[in-house]
């Protein structure tokens, strides 16, 4: 199996840490041998603000590479609001674009609707390389990181939490997994 680079937004990490409070699942994803995680400085800063960050601090330091050579987020800063910039969604888009141009295999996780819309309008070539946190759970199931029961359990926890996602999207994924694909 080919190794793929994963570029999650901060919501992905915070979903496990703060929303469903199940960091053990995040640790398993981070340790999957065919995923290489990368991030940017702003996203990292946002995750570090979580009161539970210390639980996964060591794992993040070991498994997530911080892109440091270029401050990619600066390229997109004029196009996003101050609040959006603080969350770092623009950083995921910028890193994704750079990796696409460099022809590196990657999958990015973006949950913010406006950021997704911006990406679709300006970089339609990479639209198929983008998923949401809940969509990524389906990918984890497909790769057998989690069993069917575990995946459904995680998705149910997300559904009940304050994580911002349309319930219908989660229900569709649960249905697909339950029916087996």
């Amino acid at each position: 199996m080919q190794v793929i680079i994963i570029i999650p937004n901060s919501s992905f990490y915070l979903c496990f840490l703060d929303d469903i409070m199940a960091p053990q699942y995040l640790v398993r994803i981070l340790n999957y041998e065919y995923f290489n995680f990368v991030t940017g400085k702003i996203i990292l800063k946002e995750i570090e603000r979580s009161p539970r960050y210390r639980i996964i601090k060591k794992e993040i330091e070991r498994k997530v590479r911080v892109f440091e050579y270029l401050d990619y987020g600066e390229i997109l800063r004029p196009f996003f609001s101050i609040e959006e910039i603080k969350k770092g969604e623009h950083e995921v888009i910028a890193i994704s674009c750079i990796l696409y141009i460099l022809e590196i295999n990657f999958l990015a996780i973006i949950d913010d609707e406006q950021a997704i819309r911006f990406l679709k309008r300006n970089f339609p070539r990479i639209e198929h390389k983008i998923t949401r946190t809940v969509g990524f759970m389906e990918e984890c199931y497909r790769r057998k990181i989690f069993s069917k029961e575990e995946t459904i359990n995680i998705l149910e926890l997300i559904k009940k939490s304050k994580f911002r996602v349309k319930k219908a999207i989660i229900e569709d994924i649960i249905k697909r997994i339950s029916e087996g694909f």
Partner: protein
Amino acid sequence: MQKELNEFEMIERYMILLLGVVDRPIPSREHLQKELFILSKANPKASGFLKFKKHHKGPFSSEISELIDKPAYYVNAFSVDKRGRCSLTEKGKKIYEQIVKENSEDPQFKELLAAMKMIRELYDKLSKDELLFLIHVTFPEFRKKSTYFDKLLAKKKKLAKSLLKKGLITEKRFKELASYNYNSKQ
């Protein structure tokens, strides 16, 4: 790129790379200035060579302004047409290809080119006013209070609407831009 190159030669090289990375002219001198400014913000190494000062039209480099017309190292590499569109001459294109060839194995150089391509893809789409408005608002530390910026502020709603229509800004950014004034935070 090699460190021992003269500062001005390095600036000319950055200009050649930005102009050559996409096969169409940069829309204006202002676009050339601001796109290299964004590059300097994104790439600490480039910021060592590309120096910008406060100006009534936002960040400005007198070196870039001079070298596009009179390059000191790569003579006849650049061309600026009557509408201000900047491009590489045939000679400039050959120099671009040579620089790319010399650095083709350097991963940081590849990242630099990718970043330049991304800058071109986005910022070339902006009109001159849209570009200057976005840069003025995002980097207030590089603007001088001027009648020019006042003119842009007078049509901020129109500019913000046009940016939103093109899909170049998010709705939240639209709201910030449409209500922007001198005291707004950035």
